[in-house]
């Protein structure tokens, strides 16, 4: 039944993919997103169906399939975000009608989703890598969609992925193959069974390969540089999938590889934790500076992935610890990490959709230029607010619960470095809050300006897309059991107990419902007891000045938190230094190449005198090594031939004679 649902879902994706045959732009978009919606619904049905019958093994298109708890967590992410995103896409892509190529979208979009479904359900390393690459590839096609800024961003993304994700995975695959020796034996379990025969060096290489590949995909510092421009320039529904879903595949990979192929070791756990903490700090602090809505969200994606990695790292470090308390901390950390992955998919997905809605309505992503959208786009505003509160980790929203679990796991580990990690996570949570206050208020606060007063609320389908995710943020925040039921599957039951009223682990108990009730009752009581009689409208107080330019009477996005940013300026300088270093290394490499390349090209024939870049070299005639050896002889023969044709005949006769003599 479950496999059947998987097949159903995939066939729907295939139908969506080939709906491009319809040709007419809008119909294609409608059709393909409808199929994607249905397919996502099938996925959700699959989760319901599979729940309680895990693990499920089977075969699909000749590839082995295994759905276990871990797969289910990520299937849930794909299903829910995919559903919302597909509904949103229904109208959103109208924005790009001028570009045509609807069939490409249908193909790539559905392939993207389908590849991720297969990625988390396959139990075979080669197929894992195969789907991984399909995912990367279709994402690339979707990222470069608007064909302007996105081209460079997409190229950067794709090249980075190839270097830092594809290559290591191929290497990992090769090492895996070298222990099992057959294509069919590349199942995760098989490799795990044989891993003992590898030399320690190769095992380390295997860890490193997996780590690098997943770092790149989830944008861990220092491999995060591609994220902001890629997410910002992709269409927003795609950014949602990239940030909400694709990044999570790296988490899936990390957990899968660490627990099911390799062994979770303490050293590896520390490494992952350090990466996580560095990333959450760097990503979020850079996000604080952004004034472009989608770049801001993109940097937050980097930061939030740091949280997830920190959680997973706690799992890797402690889960196999003989001390049951610490083992429990590990379990908690892993569950928290996965939980946060799910939550991040929800709120970041919603936020990207909201940013897309703002762009759709106001035509810009620049937060400095928009204001007062609460008046024009009330629903988008509400959804953006819910998601912002979610990502900021405000109680009663989903982000709080998972972040809190990460803090708890960190604090209770009683390990200085993990406690420090928890402290930094706590600090960064405040930074996130600051950043989203800026995001929400600069777009939706204040009064509409010239640009935004002309805008209109976005179509219903887009609102539904945003709504699904945002409301889930609130629902999970109040009833975490909804999500915990799934995210605790991979770590085993009984460690974290979640009920309708709340969740508990160890001796800790937290009931968001009760908090919601207390807060709600108080809020309503105050509202009723002291109703605001705010009838009289007035203009904001401008100290009574005349002819005051009201448009500029507010903080713009770039004005927020400047003193704080200045205070931590050294941090940014440090980060920028590494950015410059990277650029410098690339430039030097190219320069070195050009230097070598000069010897492969007849530069003298290039009309320009100086050769500064590769492009200059292309105008010259390529030199060949063998030409250099043989051409003199050929020329000699030619010259001789011109002088006397008979000479050639003579040479040939001599050659034949020599040969004949040799043979005899």
């Amino acid at each position, binding site marked *: 039944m479950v496999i059947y649902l998987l097949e159903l879902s995939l066939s729907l994706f295939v139908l969506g993919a080939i709906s491009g045959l319809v040709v007419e732009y809008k119909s294609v978009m409608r059709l393909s997103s409808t199929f994607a919606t249905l397919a996502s619904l099938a996925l959700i049905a699959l989760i319901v169906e599979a729940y309680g019958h895990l693990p499920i093994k089977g075969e699909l298109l000749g590839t082995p399939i295994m759905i276990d708890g871990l797969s289910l967590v990520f299937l849930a992410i794909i299903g829910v975000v995919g559903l919302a995103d597909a509904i949103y896409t229904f109208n959103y892509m109208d924005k790009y009608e001028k570009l045509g190529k609807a069939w490409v979208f249908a193909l790539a979009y559905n392939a993207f989703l389908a590849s991720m479904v297969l990625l988390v359900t396959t139990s075979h390393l080669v197929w894992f890598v195969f789907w991984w690459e399909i995912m990367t590839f279709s994402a690339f096609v979707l990222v470069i969609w608007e064909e302007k800024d996105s081209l460079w961003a997409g190229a950067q993304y794709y090249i980075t992925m190839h270097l830092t994700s594809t290559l290591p995975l191929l290497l990992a695959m090769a090492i895996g193959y070298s222990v099992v020796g057959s294509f069919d034996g590349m199942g995760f379990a098989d490799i795990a069974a044989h891993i003992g025969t590898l030399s320690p060096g190769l095992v380390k290489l295997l860890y490193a390969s997996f780590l690098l590949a997943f770092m790149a995909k989830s944008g861990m510092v220092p491999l995060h540089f591609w994220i902001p421009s890629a997410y910002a320039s992709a269409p927003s529904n795609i950014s949602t999938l990239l940030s909400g879903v694709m990044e999570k595949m790296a988490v899936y990979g990390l957990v899968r590889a660490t627990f099911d192929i390799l062994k979770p070791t303490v050293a590896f756990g520390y490494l992952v934790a350090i990466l996580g903490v560095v990333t959450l700090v760097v990503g979020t602090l850079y996000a604080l500076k952004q004034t472009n809505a989608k770049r801001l969200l993109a940097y937050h994606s980097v930061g939030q992935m740091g949280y997830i990695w920190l959680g997973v790292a706690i799992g890797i470090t402690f889960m196999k610890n003989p001390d049951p308390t610490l083992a429990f901390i590990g379990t908690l950390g892993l569950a928290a990490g996965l939980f946060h992955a799910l939550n991040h998919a929800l709120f970041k997905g919603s936020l990207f959709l909201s940013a897309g809605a703002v762009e759709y309505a106001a035509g810009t992503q620049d937060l400095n230029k928009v204001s007062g959208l609460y008046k024009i786009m009330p629903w988008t505003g509400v959804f953006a607010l819910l998601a912002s509160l979610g990502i900021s980790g405000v109680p009663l929203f989903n982000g709080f619960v998972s972040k809190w679990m990460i803090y708890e796991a960190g604090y209770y580990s009683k390990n200085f470095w993990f406690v420090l990690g928890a402290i930094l996570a706590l600090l960064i949570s405040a930074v996130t809050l600051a950043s989203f206050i800026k995001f929400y208020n600069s777009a939706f606060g204040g009064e509409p300006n010239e640009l935004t007063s002309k805008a209109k609320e976005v179509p219903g389908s887009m609102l539904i897309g945003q709504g699904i995710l945002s409301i889930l943020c609130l629902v999970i925040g109040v009833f975490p059991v909804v999500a915990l039921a799934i995210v605790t599957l991979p770590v085993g039951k009984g460690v974290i107990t979640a009920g309708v009223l709340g969740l508990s682990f160890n001796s800790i108990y937290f009931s968001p419902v009760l908090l919601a009730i207390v807060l709600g009752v108080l809020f309503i009581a105050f509202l009723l007891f002291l109703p605001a009689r705010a009838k009289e409208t007035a203009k904001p107080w401008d100290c009574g000045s005349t002819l005051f330019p009201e448009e500029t009477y507010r903080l713009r996005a770039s004005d927020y938190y400047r003193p704080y940013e200045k205070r931590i300026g050294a941090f940014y300088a440090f980060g920028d230094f590494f950015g410059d270093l990277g650029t410098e290394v690339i430039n030097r490499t190219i320069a070195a190449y050009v230097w*070598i390349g000069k010897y492969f090209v007849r530069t003298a024939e290039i009309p320009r005198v100086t050769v500064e870049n590769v*492009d200059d070299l292309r105008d010259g005639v390529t030199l060949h090594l063998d030409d250099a050896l043989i051409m003199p002889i050929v020329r000699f023969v030619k010259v001789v031939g011109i002088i006397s044709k008979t000479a050639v005949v003579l040479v040939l006769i001599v050659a034949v004679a020599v040969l004949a003599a040799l043979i005899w």
Partner: protein
Amino acid sequence: MNSTIFLLSFLIPWLLGLIEFKLDKKKADIVMLISALSSLALTSYGLVLFLGNRGIYHLVYIHSQGLGEVFGFVVDTMSVLMAFIVSLTALLILLYAIDYMSSSNKLHPVTSGKGTFYGWMLILEGAVLGFVFSSSLLSFLVFAEVIAIATWGVIRYYKTPNARHAANKAFGFINLSMLFGLLLVVVFGLVKYHDTSLYALTQLDSHAKLWVFLGVMFTAITMSSQFPLYSWLPDSTEAPTPASAFTHSIGIVEAGLFMMVRTIQFMDGIPKTAYYVIAILVVITQVMSIFYYPLQKDAKRLLAYSTIAQVGIMYVALLGAMLGSAGGLQASVYQLFNHSLVKSLAFLVAGTFGFSFGTFDMKKIKGLRWILPGAAVGWFLALLGLAGVPPMGLFLSKANVIMTGTTTVRGAPWIEWVPILLVLVDATIFFLVAVLWLKSMLFGEPSYEKGKISPLMCAVLIVLMVVMTVSPFLTLHLTESIRFIGG
């Protein structure tokens, strides 16, 4: 196993090909179609028959006391599949050529002489088909010579000075390599053993094995345009694009590798020295092509260097085979199949640039997706496919090469890892170059008026795209049955 089918499959093109020299225009098209179609029909029928009746069949047609096995067939998975792909690719390329070799071609308008082109092409096809079934070094030599001549014929087809020079160079290089390689080996074999059959290779003593192997290798790598005699291939892009497509995807270049595979397949226990010689040459080739990729602005020349590298990857796989891993053979052949389809697509798409815009200069082409959408998609898939991006088959075959490579070098000195890692590096560099070219060529303000290609050409491209995407999954398991035969 009735091998007459295969015999016919190469004799018909030869025969009709000779007739073609006298024909032109429509008539030439029809004869060509008959020939290519019948060839494909025969090889497909043969393939179907073979799949129902697998095995390794050795048929000897001509055998003489003094010369041993002069002409015979080895019918096995490899040759049958190869024959099928050769005739399929040939048909598609020739179909494409019908419209390409016409007066509407902007770069090389062709008004007459189509028959000559078809003639050379059919002879080339026939020769390759004959080559893949060959069972002796002697017939390898003979077919290779025919291939070389036909290649010469197609390269110089436009008869420009450059084309002539390129054709002479190709012919000269190949014959040079044969003079010091295959020919020497054959002569040596005939003189010493009176037999050049592949089956006889196992019986050589190790000293002789080394020299025979090196001899065959020298010719093979020259045919495959590996270091040291490689430059004839980039130059040969002066040929009409369909001819280039054939040469690069399944023609002489692959024939060289095929011969190598056969030799290794039959020659049991190859001395390690040979391994090192070939490893060094392959490494040099890879490094070289890494340097050459970024320097190209001519679409076809870029593809030519890619061919050199891709075939190099096949040789890397063979390195594993030389150390005794059947996986290496499989990976090599699998890579060959996948590469042939992707490369023909790439060349045919590049052909449309010349056809529509009259240039192969990639710097001049911008906004392709607006002016030639079909070609844009094809070029996108082809370049990324060559770089090893799934779902295009080269991803799987490259992965295969690397995976099988590691099994043999695991525990070996690090130096043996070098060729395998170079495969990765090479793929990466090509990927970089490809992505950057795609970025500049496909998008932005168009640099030309809207281009036009004929429906037939477009259909061929689409068919190729589909076949190229589907075939790797079909051939994956078929190639797994390739094994060592000798010993």
